[in-house]
C-alpha cells in the first residue's frame, strides 16, 4: 500500500483563497482516484502562500481488474452478424465461449478481462485533470503558456512511496514535469531539494524555513504574539479572521511587537484597530487595565540578522503615516460634528440611496418621521427618536467612514457625543443598523429600537413600493436581513406592534406616482411571516405550528403570534399534547363531514338534556369547566394555561367518542351531538387552529 505526496508549487497564492483550494484539491484528486478504482486510507491537505500539498496514505497500488461478459449472436447466425461481433470485441472465433441456451441452440459469448491499472498511471491522469480544471475563483495565464492557475505554477512534486522507496509519477503539464523536488523559503532557504516521503517532506521543509500546516502557523503566531504582549504587561486582542489571513501570508512566521505613538493613543480604539488591521494586517495589543489599544504585533515572514529591528522600524513608520491620516480624519470630523453635523446632513442630499427612492437625505427624513410614530409604541420619547434618526446616518459623510466603511454607526456615536447630543441619540447612531443577522446583538434602548425599526421598515416599504422584492437567491438590497431585523427587534423586546399599520405609515411617505404593483397588498406581511418561520424553525418551532397560529386573529402582532406558537409547541411535547390533538382531530373530522353533508354549521349550542350516557354528560361538565378557564386565560394571553385546560379535555373527549354514536338515526340526538362536537372545536381553537397542526 503506497503513500502519495503531491505538491503544487506556485507564486504567491492569495491568502483568502487557500482554505477553499485545500478542500478542492483534496476532493478533486481523491474523487478522481476513487472513480478510477483506487482506494486510500486517509488524506491530509495543506497550504502555504506558495504551495498546495496533498498526502494520501494507504493508496492501492493498482485498480482492480474488471471482467466484462458480452452476449453475442447464436452460433448459427449469419456470417455478417458474427463478423460484426468479433470486430466489436477484438477477439477471434476460437476465443469466444460457446454456451448452450435453453432452446438447445448454442450462443456465443465474449469474456473480456480489463486488467487493473497501475496507480501511477491513474494518478498522472487525475492530477493533470485536477490542475487543468481547478476551480480557482480567479485564474490567469502567464508567459507564452495556455495553462491557467491562480498565479504562475512553477513545479509539481508527485511521488509514490512504498517499502522500496519513492518513485516520481511520470507527468508533464504544459511543460512542467513532475519531480521529487521542492524549494524552501523564498529568502531564507531558496535551494531546491528532493524528498522521499511525506514525513521527510515536512521535516526538510521546516529545516528550509517553511511551516507546512497553516494550523501550526496560526498557533505559532498566536502564541508568539501573546507572549510578546504578555511580557510587556499587555494583552493581544483576539481576531480569528486576521489570524487565518496572516497565516496565509507567511511560510515562516515571526511576530514582532511595537508601540503606538503617544500622539495617536487618544483615537477611538476601534479606529486604531481597524486602521491597523485593514491596511497593515497588524494585531492590536491592549492595556488590560485601561482597555486602551497601545501596541501592535506585525508578523514578518523572515528572520533577519538584526532580529527584525529594521522590519519593525519600517512597519512603525508606515503605521505612523496611516494613523496620521486617521488622526487628520478624526480631528476634521470632530470639527464638523461639534458644529452640529450640518455639513454632513447637507452632503447627504447629494448621495443617492436608490434612483427611485431618492437621496439619503430623503430617506433620513422618512425614517425620522416613522421613528416618531414608533417611539410611543416602544416607550421612547418621540422628539428624541426623531432627533436620533435625523443624525444617525450623518457619519456616512464623515472622512473616517469614507476611509473605513465598516466603522459606520460607531463613528456616528462618537460624533453625536461630540456634538453634545444625548446618550440615547448617540447609542441609536451606533445601534440602529442592528441586528444584522440571526445571532447579532439586538438593541434594547427604546430610542435605538425606534430608529432601528424605522430604518428597516422604511427600506422594506420602499422596495415593496417599487416592486423590487427578493426572488429566489437574489436579494440585492438585503431585504430578508431587514425583515429578520424587524422580527428580532420585536421578539427580543417583546414589542406589541401592528406591522400592517406601520407598513402603511411607511408606505404613505412614498409618492403615489412611484408605486408600481400593488402598494398595499399583504405580501409584505406574508414576507415577514415567511422570515419568522425560518427564524423560529432554527429555534425548534415547526412550520405547521406557526401556520396554526397565523390562522388566529392579531397575527400582524408577532409577539402575540410567537407566544401562541411557543405555548403550542411546549404543549405538543407533553404526553397529553398529541393525544388531545388526536381526539380533537377525530371529533373535528366527524363534525366537518357532517357539516359538509348537511350544508350547515352546527353552532347552535348543545343541550345537556339530550345527553344519554354518563360519558356524554361528563363531557358537558368538563367543557363547562375548561371554557371557564380558557376564555379568561386567552384574553390574558396566558396560552400555556389555556393549553393545560384543554389537556384536561383529552380523557372526556376520548370517552365520549368511544361510548357514543354521533350519527345516530335519531335526528335530535345527532344534531345535539354535532353541536357538542362544535363546542369542542371552538374551545380547542382558543390558542391555535389545531386543524393545521400535522400529526
Amino acid at each position: 500500500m503506497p503513500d502519495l505526496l503531491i505538491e503544487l508549487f506556485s507564486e504567491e497564492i492569495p491568502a483568502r483563497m487557500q482554505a477553499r483550494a485545500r478542500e478542492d484539491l483534496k476532493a478533486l484528486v481523491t474523487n478522481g482516484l476513487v472513480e478510477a478504482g483506487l482506494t486510500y486510507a486517509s488524506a491530509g491537505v495543506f497550504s502555504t502562500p506558495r504551495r498546495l500539498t496533498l498526502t494520501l496514505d494507504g493508496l492501492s497500488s493498482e485498480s482492480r481488474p474488471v471482467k466484462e461478459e458480452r452476449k453475442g449472436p447464436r452460433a448459427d447466425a449469419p456470417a455478417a452478424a458474427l463478423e460484426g461481433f468479433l470486430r466489436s470485441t477484438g477477439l477471434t472465433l476460437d476465443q469466444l465461449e460457446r454456451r448452450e441456451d435453453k432452446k438447445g441452440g448454442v450462443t456465443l459469448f465474449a469474456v473480456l478481462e480489463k486488467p487493473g491499472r497501475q496507480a501511477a498511471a491513474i494518478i498522472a491522469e487525475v492530477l493533470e485533470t485536477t490542475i487543468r480544471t481547478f476551480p480557482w475563483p480567479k485564474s490567469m495565464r502567464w508567459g507564452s503558456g495556455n495553462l491557467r492557475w491562480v498565479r504562475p505554477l512553477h513545479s509539481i512534486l508527485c511521488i509514490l512511496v512504498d517499502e522500496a522507496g519513492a518513485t516520481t509519477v511520470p507527468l508533464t503539464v504544459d511543460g512542467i514535469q513532475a519531480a521529487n523536488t521542492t524549494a524552501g523559503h523564498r529568502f531564507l532557504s531558496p535551494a531546491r531539494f528532493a524528498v522521499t516521503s511525506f514525513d521527510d517532506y515536512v521535516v526538510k521543509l521546516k529545516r528550509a524555513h517553511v511551516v507546512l500546516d497553516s494550523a501550526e502557523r496560526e498557533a505559532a503566531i498566536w502564541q508568539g504574539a501573546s507572549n510578546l504582549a504578555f511580557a510587556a504587561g499587555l494583552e493581544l486582542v483576539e481576531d480569528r479572521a486576521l489570524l487565518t489571513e496572516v497565516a496565509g501570508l507567511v511560510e515562516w512566521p515571526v511576530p514582532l511587537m511595537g508601540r503606538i505613538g503617544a500622539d495617536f493613543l487618544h483615537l477611538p480604539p476601534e479606529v486604531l484597530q481597524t486602521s491597523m488591521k485593514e491596511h497593515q494586517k497588524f494585531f492590536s495589543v491592549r492595556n488590560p487595565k485601561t482597555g486602551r489599544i497601545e501596541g501592535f504585533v506585525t508578523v514578518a515572514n523572515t528572520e533577519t540578522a538584526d532580529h527584525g529591528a529594521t522590519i519593525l522600524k519600517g512597519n512603525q513608520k508606515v503605521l505612523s503615516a496611516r494613523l496620521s491620516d486617521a488622526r487628520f480624519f478624526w480631528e476634521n470630523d470632530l470639527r464638523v460634528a461639534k458644529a452640529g453635523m450640518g455639513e454632513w446632513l447637507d452632503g447627504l442630499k447629494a448621495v443617492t440611496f436608490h434612483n427611485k427612492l431618492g437621496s439619503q437625505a430623503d430617506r433620513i427624513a422618512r425614517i425620522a418621521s416613522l421613528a416618531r410614530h414608533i417611539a410611543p409604541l416602544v416607550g421612547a420619547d418621540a422628539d428624541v427618536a426623531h432627533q436620533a434618526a435625523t443624525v444617525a446616518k450623518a457619519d456616512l459623510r464623515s472622512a473616517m467612514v469614507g476611509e473605513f466603511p465598516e466603522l459606520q454607526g460607531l463613528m456616528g456615536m462618537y460624533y453625536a457625543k461630540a456634538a453634545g447630543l444625548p446618550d440615547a441619540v448617540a447609542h441609536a447612531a451606533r445601534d440602529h443598523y442592528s441586528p444584522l443577522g440571526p445571532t447579532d446583538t439586538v438593541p434594547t434602548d427604546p430610542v435605538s429600537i425606534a430608529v432601528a425599526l424605522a430604518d428597516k421598515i422604511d427600506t422594506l416599504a420602499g422596495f415593496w413600493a417599487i416592486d423590487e422584492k427578493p426572488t429566489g437567491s437574489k436579494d440585492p438590497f438585503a431585504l430578508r436581513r431587514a425583515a429578520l431585523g424587524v422580527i428580532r427587534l420585536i421578539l427580543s423586546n417583546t414589542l406589541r406592534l401592528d406591522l400592517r399599520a406601520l407598513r402603511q405609515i411607511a408606505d404613505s411617505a412614498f409618492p403615489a406616482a412611484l408605486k408600481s404593483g400593488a402598494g398595499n397588498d399583504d405580501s409584505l406581511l406574508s414576507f415577514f411571516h415567511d422570515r419568522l418561520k425560518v427564524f423560529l424553525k432554527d429555534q425548534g418551532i415547526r412550520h405547521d405550528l406557526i401556520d396554526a397560529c397565523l390562522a388566529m386573529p392579531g397575527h400582524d402582532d408577532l409577539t402575540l403570534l410567537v407566544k401562541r406558537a411557543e405555548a403550542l409547541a411546549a404543549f405538543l411535547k407533553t404526553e397529553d399534547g398529541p393525544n388531545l390533538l388526536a381526539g380533537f382531530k377525530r371529533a373535528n373530522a366527524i363534525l366537518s363531514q357532517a357539516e359538509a353533508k348537511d350544508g350547515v354549521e352546527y353552532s347552535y349550542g348543545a343541550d345537556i338534556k339530550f345527553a344519554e350516557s354518563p360519558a356524554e354528560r361528563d363531557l358537558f361538565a368538563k367543557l363547562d369547566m375548561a371554557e371557564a378557564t380558557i376564555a379568561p386565560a386567552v384574553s390574558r394571553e396566558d396560552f400555556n394555561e389555556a393549553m393545560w385546560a384543554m389537556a384536561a379535555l383529552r380523557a372526556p373527549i376520548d370517552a365520549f367518542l368511544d361510548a357514543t354514536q354521533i350519527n345516530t338515526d335519531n335526528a335530535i340526538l345527532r344534531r345535539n351531538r354535532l353541536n357538542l362536537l362544535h363546542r369542542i372545536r371552538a374551545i380547542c381553537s382558543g390558542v391555535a387552529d389545531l386543524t393545521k397542526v400535522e400529526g
Partner: protein
Amino acid sequence: MTVTAPTPPRSFQEIILRLQSYWAAQGCAVLQPYDMEVGAGTFHPATTLRSLGTKPWAAAYVQPSRRPTDGRYGENPNRLQHYYQYQVIIKPSPPNLQELYLGSLRAIGLDPALHDIRFVEDDWESPTLGAWGLGWEIWCDGMEVSQFTYFQQVGGHDCRPVSGELTYGLERLAMYVLGIDHVMTMPFNDPQSPIALTYGDIFRQTEEEYSRHNFDGADTAQLLRHFEDAEAECQRLLDFAPDDPKSGKRIIMAHPAYDQTIKASHLFNLLDARGVISVTERQAYIGRVRALAKKCADAFRLTEAGKDAEGVA
C-alpha cells in the same frame, strides 16, 4: 545575477539611475517618458499597445504621471498631483520575473535579508483602458512599494502571450529607502553636490500652481470641448483607409489615434478634479474613454508591431 548595492543610495535621482542600469542589465530597452500627460506609466504606448500581439518586448522607463485630484498644494508629506512612476514591461513574462524584481530592490538598497518583502494579493484593473490582470502589491516592511501584474487583457484583447508589468511609485519608494518623512525635503540630487536640490526646490511651486489650476483654474467648458474634440479626432484618424496614397504604404494611424485617447483620459481627470462630473456621469465618461482605447487596440492589432506572428491563432 544579484546586483548588490555597495552603498545605500543618497538621492532620488540615484535610485532612478540604479533602476535604469539594473533593468538595462536585464536586457530591457530603457525608453524615455512618453511626451504626453498621463495618469500612470501604464498609459505609455510602450505598455498599453506593446502588450498586445505576439512580438516579444522588454522595456523600462520613468513616466511622469499626473493625478489632478491628488493635488495638495505641496503640503501633504506624500501626495502629489505630479509624480514619477518607474515602469517595466516584459512580454512574454519570464519565469523568473519575481526574482528579477527582487534583484531590483537589492539594487536600490532594499536587501531582502534585512527587510520583510511580501507579495500581497492585489488584482489590477483599468476601466479606462479596458484592461485587467492578476498579481500583487509588494510590501516592504508593511509598505506598498510596487505593483506586480500579469496582464490578462488590454483594450478588450486577451494578452497572448502574457506581459509581466512592474510599477514602482518612485517618490514613496525613495522616501522609504532614504528615510525621508516629507517628500519635499527629499534630496533630488546628491546632497553633497555644490548645488544640492531637494524635491521641494524643484516641485513645491509647481505643486501649488497646478493644485490651484486643477481645482479652480482650468476652464471646464473648454476642457469639455477638448474632450469631445479628442474623442472625435481619435475616431477620425482610425477611419482613414489603411493604404496611404502618398507613400504607397499600408499605414494605420494607431499611435496618433491612441494619443487622442490619452488626451481624453487626462481631460476627464481634470474635469473630475474640477468637480463638474457627477457620480452617474463618471461611469459614462470612463466608458467613452474605454471605447476609444478599445478601438486603438483593435487598430494596433492590425499593424506590424501589434499583429500575431505567423501560425499563432
